[in-house]
């Protein structure tokens, strides 16, 4: 697979700061997009790639913290790095509790910001990967017939084939057939794999 392209979103009302941050971040080979306010960010469309968000707390209109909450409630899982001119403890606690990666006070050290961005992007990448994987699994699971799904459900719970057959009311052989077809579809190499897959699917539910 190619290195996934990532993007860093910077939302700060100070143009000078925006430009400076862009300069800095691009210098390490990352792509940056600048926004002057939360609204601006929301109203623009972004490619759905690995990304993170560098967010000033003090913004015109909605504040950074509130925006964080809004994103969370809108299920936008982009990782957030807060930067702020004046940071007090309650503010930072709230930000971190809300799931922010980092809380930096201006003026911050360049390395601190870059490190935070890396972590954020990593997290996002990881998430996306995880989600992709889940999606694939789900797809595969969707491709199973109902009878196959039934069998899988019982098999992964540890029920022997004979019992499964008896439960459903089909023959053991049929159970075996369904099981192997399901495993094929699911691309599980072993029963253990299948179990794991089903577990993962269950968690995501």
């Amino acid at each position, binding site marked *: 697979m190619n290195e996934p392209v990532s993007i860093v979103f910077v939302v700060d009302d100070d143009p000078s700061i925006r430009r*400076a941050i862009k300069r800095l971040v691009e210098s390490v080979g990352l792509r940056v997009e600048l926004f002057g306010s939360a609204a601006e960010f929301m109203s623009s469309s972004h490619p759905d790639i690995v990304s993170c968000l560098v967010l000033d707390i003090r913004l015109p209109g909605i504040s950074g913290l509130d925006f964080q909450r809004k994103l969370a409630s809108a299920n936008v899982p982009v990782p957030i790095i807060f930067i702020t001119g004046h940071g007090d403890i309650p503010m930072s606690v709230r930000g971190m509790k809300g799931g922010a990666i980092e809380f930096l006070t201006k003026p911050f050290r360049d390395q601190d910001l870059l490190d935070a961005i890396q972590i954020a992007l990593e997290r996002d990448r990881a998430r996306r990967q995880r989600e992709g994987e889940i999606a694939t699994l789900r797809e595969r699971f969707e491709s199973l017939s109902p009878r196959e799904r039934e069998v899988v459900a019982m098999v992964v719970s540890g029920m022997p084939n004979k019992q499964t057959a008896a439960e459903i009311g089909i023959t053991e052989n049929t159970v075996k057939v369904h099981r192997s077809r399901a495993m094929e579809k699911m691309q599980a190499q072993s029963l253990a794999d299948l179990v794991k897959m089903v577990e993962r699917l269950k968690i995501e539910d």
Partner: protein
Amino acid sequence: MTVSAIMPMTGFYDYSEVARSILIAIAASYAALDLAGRVTAASGRVRLAWLSGGAIAMGIGIWTMHLKGMLAFGLPVPVEYYWPTLLVGLSVAIFASAVALYVTSRPNMSRTDALTGSIVMSAGIAGLHYSLMAAMRMPAITRYSPLLVACSILLAVLFSLIALLMAFGLREETRGTVPRKIGSAIVMGIAISAMHYTGMAAASFFPGPPPDLSHTVSNAPIAGSGVVVATLLVLVAAIFTSSVDRRAHAEIRQVNQDLERRVAERTSQLEAVNQALRKEIAERERAEEALRTSEREQHRIAEQLETERARLIEAQAVAKVGSWETELPSLDITWTEQTHRIFETDPSYFHPTRPGFVELVHPEDRAKVDAAFEASLEKGAASTVKYRIVMADGRVKVLEDHWKVFHDGQGRPARLIGTCQDITERQQAEEDLRGSEDRLRLVIDTIPQQIWSGPADGSLDFCNAQWRSYTGLTLEELQGEGWQRILHPEDRERVLTSWRESVANGTPYEQEERHRRADGQYRWFLARGVPLRDSEGHIIRWYGTNTDIEDRKEADGRLRLVIDTLPALVWSKLPDGSADFLNKRFREYTGLSEEEGLGWGWMKNAFHPEDRAEEEWRAAFAAGEPFEKEARLRREDSSYRWFLLRAVPLRDETGNVIKWYGSTTDIEDRKRAEEALLEAQHKLALVARIQAMAELAATIAHEVNQPLTAIVTNASFSLRQLGGSTPNFDEVRTAITEIVNDGTRASAVISRIRGLLVKGTSRRVDLDINRTIRDVIVLLGNELSRNHVHLRTELAFNLPRVHGDPVQLQQVLINLVMNALDAMRLSTEQARNLLIRSAKNADDIWVLVQDSGPGIEPDLAARIFEPFFTTKVEGTGMGLSISRSIIESHGGHLSLVSSSQGALFEFTLPVTMNE
């Protein structure tokens, strides 16, 4: 005998001759002493005779003695004497003697006299000696030893002096002188000889050429003896005559004395007789004098009598009193001229008789007259009768007779002597007076005042009807000291003391006292009394009134009750501010007695020490306008509470203040509340300031942080680039450019923040800075006085206007004044003085604010204008920096001037350049 030419010749003395010479010396001395006495006793020509005779005798004596001495001395060669020189020697001797006698015979011999005398004498003697030596004719040369010569001369002076003194002392002719004289003569004789032989010793003889022997006499003893005998004879003669003379003198003296004695006796006898005679004469004269005096006296009496008589007649005429005499039992009547005049009868024609007299008497009074006449004869005492007489033309006169009965040796009435006075006018006057008296009495009794009067001793002899009816007592009961019974027991002592004092000193009397009414009730009266004086100032009578003041007193009482009940501390003061009334509440509250509170006691005893601003109060009273002041009053329990004292003046018609009235209300609670409010306000302001500060800080932080962040980020980027293998210089350049821009932006932000600190929109007008200063003083007046700050302003007249924002400039002044106040609050002991001065200075207005606080230390002085720098515990440190900003934005300059005491801030503002 070998005579050597070199050696002196040895002389030899014939000692018998020496002895004879000494004898002669003694004799001569005695003679001298004697003669001295003679010369002294004598006078005039006799004296001169004695002097000359004495001198000759003495001279011969001395000369002989020397010659004898010379003759006693023998030399181995023949010695002759040149007799002229001898005679010269004699004359010298006589001269010396004369001097001696003269000196010793004077009344006084002073030291100078004695000395001069002795020198002359010794000169004479020396002269004599050396002349004798010079008279020697011999084949020899005489040499003198200077030393011995000097000795001999010295001896001569000494001898002379001794001789003079002795002679002077012995010249008196007293008994017992003779032995002494002999003694002295011996001494003198020996002395003379000693002197001679010393002189001789001084000479030494050497062989010499043969002498010229013309006119010489030889050394023949016989001649010598002859000379001696002659001399002795002379001396004896002298002595003899001297003694004879003395005796004669003595006798004469004796006779003189006797004579004198007898004369004295006789004189004293005569004196006695004289005295007696004089005494007699004196007595005689006295007698004569006495006689003369009595004669004169008689004359005088006679004259006096005459004069008296004339006067009597005169007096009678003036007084219209005539006198009369009635002989008894003949009833012969004699009238004086005046009596005639009274009766209008002619003395030439009318001879008064008893019936004639009675005829003239008014018929109605005849009986009275007769009765009086009869009665007096019996009584024998002075009598009087008043009666009328009728004149020819019908006029009636009223007469008054006074007479006395005189008795003869046997005690029988002999005559009546009396006076008769025309009292018609007096009678009339009395009637008129009585009439007016009656009217007056009516008035006095009708006036609705109690009136009284009495003699100078303070007793009462008159009370008008009003008083009598009030007391229900009669005049008799009130008279004298009786009036005292109506006094209230509590007032008695005071009234009597005061009245007695008035009576004694003549000062008007005034007292408020209670008098008892007829029904037993007491009412208050104002009793007043004034004295009536005669022309010499002595008091004749006392007059007075009693005015019923019961109602007034009651009203006073009610008023007092009201004043005392009012829930306020009420007082009144005299125009100068000393209290003359403090209501009950005041006294109860402060716990002061009347005495403690009156005068200025209210301030001294009830005010808090810090509030006893006597000067200010006095000034306020003097100003005469209503005023109010706050002060802490001490409560009875010694705690202090704040009070508001309000005073209003009461004026008379001319507008002068005659009294101050005031009330004092408790404002402690209000004060506390005020203070709490002020406190809260301060706190609030502080909190607001702090709040603002915090916000400001946040703002600053944020505003400045933005460009800073950009700068830091850009710089980090640039470093990364430059540190990498392939720096993108274009990007770096861009980044650095942005850094510069952001730096500029940051500074602009700071300027903007500073501008923000100067709050509000600035409204500038042309203003008078003095007005601004005064406004601030008014604003902070209370604050200043509450902190006992003494403010002095020196604002220059006619300052040019400045263009500025009055609110902002006020803010600056408030800041400076409040800083000053805070500084001075630190010291409680020193006086708190604040000076605000304004002046014109070239193109600027110059304002100075100086306090008397501890001042600002030099190392702090540099920093006080920094923002956030403060030395105050609760200070924000913004005041001065803001003030400076304001002043500088006005184009002026605010600075701290170094000062030895206190802090001195001054700022300048440019004068408006006028159109």
